[in-house]
């Protein structure tokens, strides 16, 4: 068992991953809070006021990391789903299922903050900007994934069907993104872009980076918590779950 690959496979089983995830969660929460506080401090107090957009631009410190995360998480989700389909590992499907709601939340957050930002900048809550439109479609893709998994009773089938949808989606995300972008330029849409800042101050970049890290840590922590809940739910009939101290404590 000294082979590192076998060591990794050991953590591929829900039984050994459950306590490991439990140990990791507080760390990721701590990091999320630390990065978040630092990022917010920079973005609200250190970063200079934008001479064009005033104070309102500060929403990009939430908006941009959320948009990044929503795209990243879809790829991560599809990655786990693909692993689950190829290697038939149970944990991978659970990971994909656990990531989806956070991804949807991020997509929604980027839409929401985009709208708040858009009102003072463009004078409208919604413009058919290429980024906003593709974020909207990404949000729909997440919702479709979650709805499909929720509609199938057998968890194994739900995992596999979800995996195919995620893989089809991941092929389509770039196609959708570029088609929307093309459509946008053809129709001479909004010329102001959310992230197009000609000379972004270094402090702004730092703020954005710290916030992105905080979002990463938050997403990992929440996904791990969710995957633990999913493991308990699906493995409820097994001996090791029944012997867990937290389960024993509740039933006695």
């Amino acid at each position, binding site marked *: 068992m000294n082979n590192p690959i076998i060591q990794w496979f050991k953590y591929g089983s829900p039984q050994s991953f459950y306590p490991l995830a439990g140990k990791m969660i507080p760390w990721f929460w701590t990091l999320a809070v630390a990065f978040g506080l630092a990022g917010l401090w920079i973005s609200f107090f250190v970063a200079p006021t934008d001479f064009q957009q005033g104070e309102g631009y500060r929403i990009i410190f939430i908006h941009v990391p959320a948009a990044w995360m929503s795209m990243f998480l879809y790829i991560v989700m599809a990655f786990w789903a693909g692993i689950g389909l190829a290697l038939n590992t149970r944990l991978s499907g659970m990971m994909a299922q656990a990531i989806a709601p956070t991804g949807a939340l991020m997509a929604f957050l980027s839409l929401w903050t985009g709208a708040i930002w858009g009102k003072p900048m463009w004078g409208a809550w919604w413009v058919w900007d290429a980024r906003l439109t593709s974020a909207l479609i990404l949000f729909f893709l997440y919702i479709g994934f979650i709805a*499909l998994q929720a*509609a199938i009773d057998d968890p194994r089938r739900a995992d*596999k069907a979800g995996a195919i949808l995620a893989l089809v989606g991941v092929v*389509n995300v770039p*196609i959708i993104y570029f*088609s*929307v972008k*093309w*459509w946008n330029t053809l129709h001479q849409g909004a010329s102001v872009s959310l992230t197009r800042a000609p000379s972004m101050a270094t402090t702004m970049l730092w703020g954005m980076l710290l916030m992105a890290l905080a979002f990463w840590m938050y997403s990992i922590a929440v996904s791990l918590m969710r995957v633990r809940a999913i493991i308990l739910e699906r493995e409820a009939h097994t001996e090791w779950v029944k012997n867990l101290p937290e389960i024993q404590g509740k039933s006695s």
Partner: protein
Amino acid sequence: MSAIIAIIRRDLLLAMRRKSEVLTALFFFIIVVSLFPLGIGPESALLRKIAPGVIWVAALLATMLGLARLFAPDHADGTLEQMVLSPTPLGLLVTGKIVAHWITTGLPLVLLAPVLGIQFDLDTGALGILVLALLLGTPLLSLIGAIGAALTLGVRGGGVLLSLLVLPLYVPALIFGAGAVESHISGLGAGGHLSLLAALLALAVFFAPWATTAALRIALE
């Protein structure tokens, strides 16, 4: 190869015996398109502008109607099991079914589109581009839709779920399909849009039957 032709012939024969299903989707397409002028007003300049988008959106919705029944009857009466057990690879049989679906739902839309285009005062050149774009785009709709139909097979609330899964994936087809006609009208030429549509079709021909087959196997397990 003979098994694919047999599948196509069988599905066409079944469509002939249940004509109402095919005709319902077709009339749905006509009615949806005809409602827009009533809602927007008869100004021909405006109608000409929205025509490609309206016809394409209606085509997407009309294609959706037949999709739920692409695999469901075969699943219910056990034919799907026999298809899995056939010596012919399932992927080829699935391709045959998709072709039959396109012939019964996509092709009629292509043939009908010019008539509806005339309602919207499109000129002959634009009508030609519209037909060409639909000819490239409707097989794409059938191919992508088949994945959704296979994924939602025998699933609670399958029909609504199917639209939720498939419609976002239809976005590129809609953009390039409607865009082809629009850019022709605005004098930019439709070549770019049409070749992108053809590229998407090539990609889908390659991947969609594979994904559909995988989804069907999961549904049958």
